[in-house]
């Protein structure tokens, strides 16, 4: 793959892209996530499955990137702030040609480079993340430098919803609005679950859209599993004068019916039977 990945899909800004191709890639990414979850160290299955469609929409139909030149200066930047969804990120990067799909089998192995939280050693990873509450600041810094330099790169960041409980997120939210960063799009993977249970029961985020609006952001709420909504929402840049947040309504464990909406799937090490059952449920639902 040599051209920017957004190009072959067409549709332009606001367009939908090739929905069937995106769905095929999303299924492959989810299969990789389950396989990684069945590997020697397990993975954060639930949040990877909730983020998979957002990642596939970004890399399959939105981001201007060069898989064979990951640090290309003209690229759009993507920061995975919820770094624990590394399985979904690595799978998406591999499916888009940043490194061989076969390498996914080395996830967490001492002879490989696929650390359970993303590291710079992995082609396509913009920042090493996984400590929550950093990504929006990093994206804000990138967006500010791009804007000052007059570059047209867009900057995207994907955060978990539980992550928004970190205070540093709101320091960055203030700064991005203050500096009118209309090249910055944040996405919140609003799966409504964190380790201890429902986000609203543990440390409520509602009214979430109002919070972002009060911080000076444009807000759009989308179905985080519907490419027909996600792709145009991501392709459309923020209106002039400020950053945009997409609150993506998602389901933790999405795609594997018996894992959906369950806090127990936050982290999982799937045994052979559990893996087969999950894979079969995933393929059945697809």
């Amino acid at each position, binding site marked *: 793959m040599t051209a920017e990945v957004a190009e072959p899909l067409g549709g332009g800004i606001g367009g939908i892209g090739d929905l069937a191709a995106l769905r095929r890639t999303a299924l492959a990414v989810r299969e990789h996530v389950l396989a990684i979850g069945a590997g020697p160290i397990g993975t954060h299955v639930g949040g990877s499955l909730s983020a998979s469609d957002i990642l596939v929409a970004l890399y399959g139909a939105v981001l201007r990137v060069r898989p064979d030149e990951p640090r290309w200066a003209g690229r759009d930047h993507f920061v995975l702030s919820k770094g624990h969804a590394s399985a979904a990120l690595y799978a998406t990067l591999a499916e888009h040609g940043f490194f061989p799909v076969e390498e996914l089998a080395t996830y967490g192995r001492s002879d490989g480079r696929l650390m359970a939280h993303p590291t710079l050693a992995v082609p396509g990873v913009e*920042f090493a993340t996984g400590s929550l509450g950093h990504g929006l*600041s*990093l994206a804000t810094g990138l967006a*500010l*430098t791009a804007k000052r330099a007059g570059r047209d790169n867009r900057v995207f960041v994907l955060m978990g919803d539980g992550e928004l409980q970190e205070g*540093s997120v709101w320091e960055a939210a203030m700064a991005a609005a203050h500096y009118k960063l209309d090249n910055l799009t944040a996405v919140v993977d609003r799966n409504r679950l964190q380790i201890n249970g429902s986000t609203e029961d543990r440390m409520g985020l509602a009214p979430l859209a109002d919070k972002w609006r009060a911080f000076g952001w444009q807000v759009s709420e989308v179905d985080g599993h519907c490419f027909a909504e996600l792709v145009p929402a991501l392709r459309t840049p923020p209106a002039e004068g400020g950053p945009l947040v997409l609150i993506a309504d998602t389901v933790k464990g999405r795609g594997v019916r018996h894992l959906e909406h369950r806090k127990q799937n936050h982290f999982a090490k799937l045994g052979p039977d559990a893996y087969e059952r999950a894979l079969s449920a995933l393929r059945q639902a697809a």
Partner: protein
Amino acid sequence: MSGRPTLARRRVPGPPAPPDSDRAAYRVALLELARRDPRIWCLDSDMGGLEKQFEAELPDQYVDVGIAEANLMSMAAAVASTGLLPFANTMAAFASARALEQVKVDIAYHALPVRIVATHSGFSAAHIGPTHHAQQDLAVMRSMPNLTVLTPADVGETIRMVEAVAYLPGPVYLRLGRNPVPPVYPEDTDPGFTVGKAVELRAGDDVTIAAAGAVPVHCALSAADTLAERGFRARVLNLHTIKPLDVPALVAAAKQTAGLVTVEDHSVLGGLGGAVAETLAEHCPAPVRRVGIADAFCPRPGTHAEQLAASGVSAEHVVTAAMAVLRT
């Protein structure tokens, strides 16, 4: 208008006064660097003064993040990742505690060329008290992989240090104070500056005093004078670079003198004294006495010097420690 002769009372603007503190000197040096190189950026967190000195002249190279040190460090990392050279400005208390996770993950782990400039180090915030004291910053910063850690002894060394670290490939922690400090080096000399190379300020073979930072270096020099009156020749080393430590200079001191006294405006735990003791224990065991802030928070107001003396750091403490080393 009351008709009073206000004009006559105005100060006539003249050339700016030369800097008398390391933080003032740093600001002059930073502006000078940034004028020459647009990649040099100044990231401010409501420090007071940078907006007048830097933003007023180079607004496109200046960013104020407000009172938000965590965001300051992460944004500085992102700015550095694009090829720019940001100086992130805060106080040592906040760089090394509140924003430490961002320093660790976004700056040190990524090995990005951010220059963290931390004023008010040690007890230099003085009367403000332990909220703004930083007696732990060297201990935590020198344990961060990739980070170079430095602290200057006077105004001239600050300027040389800023120029020397501006283009280092990795991240830097520059530890500054707050208050006016007297010169260590004569004004008409250029002693040069090399990262990681200690400066011998006073030659001597009886005992070695190794100090870092403006007040500690002055304590060391003053103690050396007192020891000279007693007939002992003290070697005084300015260990301006805490990491990487000048191991050869320390080993030579351990071999050629009775032992070492370390002096710092920092806790006795984990700072310069800790670094020197660790190094010599492995490379050349020798008597080491640490003069530093006792392991306690500063209990009462006072000047910088008064508070340090009450916590164990003064020229007298250095003399006592040196005599103990000489008796071993």
